């Protein structure tokens, strides 16, 4: 359960947002909305613990994330604007590296299965730099199938995806929520995920 209260963010001496708070329970989804520059990405990065907030508190299962440290990062999966893929390595090499980084033992069978679900089975041993933008994004998203994280923080995950892939990702997120996971997503597109109505947080500049 994610509990955020009185979050204030300052960027370059100017306050970006103030007094932001929400509570996200298991199985719930939060849609973060706001105009460009309102601070959506900044908020997501603060949630991940990458950027410090000027003031405010973020609790994960009742404990401040700063204190939890490793335990929080174990439960967290973040995908920002970057795909975070090494262009000079193959798809498999990238995925097994990230599996190891998350503390799991990389399994070729698992990565194959994940890639085939996103229609990338044929690309396994290709260098990432030889893939299209859409394919690279799908490889980055295939990590969602391999992670055991409970909290998914996704920044514009639907960008550069075609209709089929968007539906696939929406189902993926819905599946994650139905298993008790949590998700915080920003998106300019309105996508229906699952059957429940998501919480919405609007950031005003």
């Amino acid at each position, binding site marked *: 359960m994610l509990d955020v209260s009185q979050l204030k963010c*300052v960027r*370059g*001496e*100017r306050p970006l947002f103030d007094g932001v708070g929400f509570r996200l329970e298991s199985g719930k989804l939060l849609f973060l909305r706001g105009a460009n520059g309102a601070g959506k990405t900044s908020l997501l990065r603060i949630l991940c613990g990458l950027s*410090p907030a000027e003031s405010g508190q973020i609790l994960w299962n009742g404990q401040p994330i700063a204190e939890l440290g490793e335990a929080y990062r174990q439960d967290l999966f973040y995908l920002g604007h970057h795909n975070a893929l090494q262009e000079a390595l193959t798809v498999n090499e990238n995925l097994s590296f990230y599996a190891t980084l998350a503390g799991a033992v990389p399994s070729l069978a698992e990565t194959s299965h994940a890639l085939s679900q996103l229609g990338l089975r044929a690309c396994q041993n290709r260098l990432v730099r030889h893939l299209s933008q859409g394919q690279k994004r799908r490889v980055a998203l295939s990590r969602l199938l391999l992670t055991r994280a409970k909290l998914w923080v996704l920044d514009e995950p639907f960008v550069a995806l075609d209709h089929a892939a968007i539906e696939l990702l929406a189902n993926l997120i819905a599946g994650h929520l139905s298993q008790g996971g949590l998700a915080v997503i920003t998106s300019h597109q309105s996508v229906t995920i699952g059957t429940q109505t998501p919480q919405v947080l609007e950031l005003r500049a």
Partner: protein
Amino acid sequence: MKTRLIHWFKFSSPQNFYVLAGRLQPIFTVLAVLLLAVGLWIAFFVAPTDAQQGEGYRIIFVHVPASQMSMFIYLIMAAWAGVGLVFNTRLSSMMASALAPTGALFALLSLVTGALWGKPMWGAWWVWDARLTSELILLFLYLGFLALQSSIDDPRRADKACAVLALVGVVNVPIIYFSVKWWNTLHQGASVSMTKSPSMAAPMLWGMLIMVVAFWMYTIAVALARVRNIILERERHTEWVKHAVE
């Protein structure tokens, strides 16, 4: 300065400190000018002519205090930067930034006066003795700090990065000094030593002391003035600055 902040926390806000600094700065400026005048008068008129070194030695009245100041300021700058990093207080980092140029100036002054002393005495503009070489490296550390600060646009990131740099520098300064001394003795470097000042008669010791205090007053005055400018620049989006500048 530190005691003030511990007792009166309200001065840790840039706005309040701006006012305090504004009131204190003229006092320190006046003290600096007075003490500098006295010190230099002792240096040039009271202290006796040295039997061996003639008149040229008088420059140690500037050289020695300048070296000491450059070292002390680095320590204080690193301390302020460290406080700013750990406690996330903006004003501490601003103080560190305010001190850096003055520290660099003293390092440079020390090197220049060292050269001016050396030339008539030992015939060379520069000697690679341990102290001068360490002073040169200290100047490099200051220049690195200033360069890093000006390269990073985001002021908070600049503060924190420079704090890390300053703390790494502080840890390294003893190591660097030790290694340079080692290097110097091993190579039987300059048989001349800048530390061999003539035996100090009482008026000379007084003169030296007054110069040190004068430099301290100058440093505080300049740091206060500079930090006021930094506060104005950093806080220029706030209401109180807009009023203050009108």
